[in-house]
């Protein structure tokens, strides 16, 4: 037995020993009580015999005084009622027997009794009581009783025996209970272990299932996105090719718009994907829904087709709501695009906004602002309605839909404290309603980017070191930089960029991708530059949301891909105006 196994034995042993001691104490106490009882019983029996004799003595005085033998005999015979009385005799003042009673013939009576006495022998009690009338002593009554009838004595011994038996039973039961408990403990432990194993297995199985579901989702996602992107790239590249072949201004304009649309769609796609996968916390602000919708007219026009009419029906004086404006824009776009897809032959989209006071809408407590988008499209079956909010649920052909649109809509409204509902019937259009809780906070100031784009100042003789591993991207960005009036030098990775800087080449600004092959990534490069050339501004760029988030949190100047030329111009100009990386970025590294 190991020390570890011995340890738990001691506390188990202690109660057993205690129990045995307790049982022994019980037996001893029981015997003491029995002995005490025995003594008191004898004393009591003797007292009883005395009383009995006294009673007889008091009754037989006259019979004794006047030698009425038959009366005396009758008194003595009355003792038959008491089974304990074995024999009784009435003796006159001379000590002679006048009358006698014997329960059984073989029992004898003393021939002479003169003085009162009380004696015990061998379980019998002999008592002689004086017979006195007034002051006159008339004689004696003798009574012999059985101190304890055999049945009663047997009962007493049985009781004592029972006590002993019970005490030993207590010990046995305790010992038994102990081992049973030990067994139960063992069984419990085994059951516990089994349960733990089962839980573990189950967890593993669930984890595997989750993993496979994730893989499946990823497969669908990548398949769909790749397909979408291919289509878009197809549109864009063919459009560009065609652009080179035609000089017809109208035709060129159409082509340019087609390319533009494909690229916008691509940007939307990635934005949705990021919104879905990142699950970033909402950047909510208190906004006027009417103003927000108004600002989206252009975006909607561009996303939809000419055969689709959009009508706005916005109640003036809408209550403020607290939402993430970017997410709201994405959600409305998702709904509008769905409506467009449901109306291949054109139709009407109505965007309606209304205040809905407390309890005006079933299931919603408090004031809400309702935003409903209605279309005249093909509508949905009840089964489809039931599933549209599921991520990746789509009825569209592979490559045409990801099934993430309404999932984003639902997630966004729920995260904003609201609700999303659908009313539709096949062939009768669809109405998607979003409810946002009324905000008690005042409206936030409009975001800075809502204003007109900053004036693009043409930089004179400014050299940008462009760090970018992708040749195509480098080429495109280089073209934009040139277009903006910058001179630029490209380094394919961070190491090459550092070499350029160390060689003393003149650089006014570093514009670097974040995720690059090689030993050093964008953020590290930016740190090295800040340490060694503190006056040199750095702007980072990335298409990866996580990397971008991390850099932005550290205070680096950041441009998220994809970006437009105006944005690039503004960011670079701002970086040059502000100088190197902000101080808190230095503090954090």
């Amino acid at each position, binding site marked *: 037995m190991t020390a570890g196994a011995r340890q738990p034995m001691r506390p188990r042993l202690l109660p057993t020993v205690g129990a045995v001691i307790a049982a022994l104490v019980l037996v001893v106490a029981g015997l003491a009580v029995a002995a005490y009882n025995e003594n008191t019983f004898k004393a009591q029996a003797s007292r009883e015999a005395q009383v009995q004799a006294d009673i007889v003595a008091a009754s037989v005085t006259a019979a004794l005084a006047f030698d009425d033998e038959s009366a005396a005999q009758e008194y003595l015979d009355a003792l038959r009622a008491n089974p304990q009385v074995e024999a009784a005799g009435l003796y006159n003042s001379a000590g*002679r027997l006048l009358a006698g009673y014997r329960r059984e013939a073989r029992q004898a009576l003393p021939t002479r009794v003169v003085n009162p006495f009380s004696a015990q022998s061998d379980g019998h009690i002999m008592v002689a009581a004086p017979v006195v009338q*007034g*002051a006159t002593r008339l004689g004696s009554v003798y009574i012999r009783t059985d101190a304890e009838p055999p049945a009663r004595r047997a009962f007493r011994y049985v009781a004592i025996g029972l006590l002993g038996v019970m005490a030993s039973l207590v010990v046995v039961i305790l010992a038994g209970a102990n081992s049973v408990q030990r067994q139960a403990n063992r069984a419990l432990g085994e059951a516990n272990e089994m349960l733990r194993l089962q839980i573990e297995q189950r967890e593993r199985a669930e984890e595997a299932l989750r993993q496979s579901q994730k893989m499946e989702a990823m497969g669908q996602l990548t398949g769909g996105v790749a397909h979408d992107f291919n289509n878009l790239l197809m549109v864009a590249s063919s459009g560009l090719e065609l652009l080179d072949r035609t000089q017809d201004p109208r035709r060129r304009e159409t082509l340019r718009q087609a390319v533009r649309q494909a690229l916008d769609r691509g940007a939307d796609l990635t934005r949705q994907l990021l919104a879905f996968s990142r699950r970033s916390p909402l950047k909510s602000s208190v906004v006027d829904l009417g103003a927000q919708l108004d600002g989206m007219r252009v975006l909607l026009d561009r996303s939809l087709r000419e055969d689709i009419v959009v009508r706005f029906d916005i109640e003036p004086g809408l209550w403020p709501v607290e939402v993430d404006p970017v997410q709201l824009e994405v959600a409305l776009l998702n709904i509008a695009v769905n409506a467009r897809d449901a109306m291949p032959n054109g139709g009407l989209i109505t965007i309606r906004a209304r205040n809905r006071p407390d309890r005006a809408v079933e299931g919603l407590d408090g004031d809400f602002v309702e935003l409903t988008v209605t279309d005249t499209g093909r509508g949905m079956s009840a089964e489809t309605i039931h599933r549209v909010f599921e991520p990746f649920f789509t009825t569209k052909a592979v490559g045409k839909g990801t099934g993430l649109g309404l999932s984003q809509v639902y997630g966004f409204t729920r995260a904003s404290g609201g609700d999303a509902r659908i009313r539709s019937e096949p062939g009768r259009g669809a109405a998607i309603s979003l409810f946002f809780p009324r905000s008690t906070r005042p409206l936030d100031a409009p975001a800075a980017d809502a204003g007109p784009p900053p004036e693009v100042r043409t930089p004179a003789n400014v050299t940008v070191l462009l760090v970018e591993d992708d040749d195509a991207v480098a080429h495109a960005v280089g073209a934009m930089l040139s277009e903006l009036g910058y001179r630029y030098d490209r380094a394919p990775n961070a190491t090459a960029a550092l070499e350029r800087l160390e060689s003393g080449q003149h650089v006014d600004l570093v514009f670097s991708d974040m995720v690059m092959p090689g030993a050093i990534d964008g953020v590290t490069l930016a740190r090295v530059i800040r340490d060694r050339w503190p006056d040199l501004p750095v702007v980072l760029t990335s298409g990866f949301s996580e990397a971008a988030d991390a850099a932005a949190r550290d205070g680096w100047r950041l441009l998220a891909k994809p970006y437009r030329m105006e944005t690039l111009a503004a960011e670079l100009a701002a970086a040059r105006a502000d100088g190197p990386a902000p101080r808190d970025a230095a503090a954090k590294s």
Partner: protein
Amino acid sequence: MRRLALTLALAATVASAPRGAWAAAALEMAVKAAYLYRFAAFVQWPPGAFNGPGTPAQICIAGDDPFGNVLDQAVKGKKIANHPISIVRLDRVDKAPPCQILFVAPSPRRRVAETLDKVRGSPILTVTDSGADPADRGVIDFVLQDNRVRFRIDGRAAVEGGLAISSKLRRLAIGSGGPP
């Protein structure tokens, strides 16, 4: 058997036991003498019946004394209600003699009834011997039954004299129905 028992009982009471018919009569009177004294233990006299503490209780005998020496022997050293006993033999009975027990010995010509009449209403336990006429019977009247000395009790006479007679004694009396 009963005879023997009585003989045995009397032998215990009487110092010497003579034999023969005369002996039987003597035995009978000895028993009566002993009983005469023993009645006292079962009788309660009204307050004032005794003269005072220390004064003797008197057992009086009216008429021809049938006991003689036997009675004196029987009461020797005995007491009645803590009073020593003295035996008084009366020649004639006046109204209310100072006796606690009065034995009216049998006599001819209605002498017994007259004597009883004189003490009627006094706290005196009158005892007679085999009164044939009820008028000749005192509170207690000896009766010889089955060759044994028994007695009967006149409860009304006892009440008239203010005497309380123990139920134990009454139960032994003839006509009481015996012991419970």
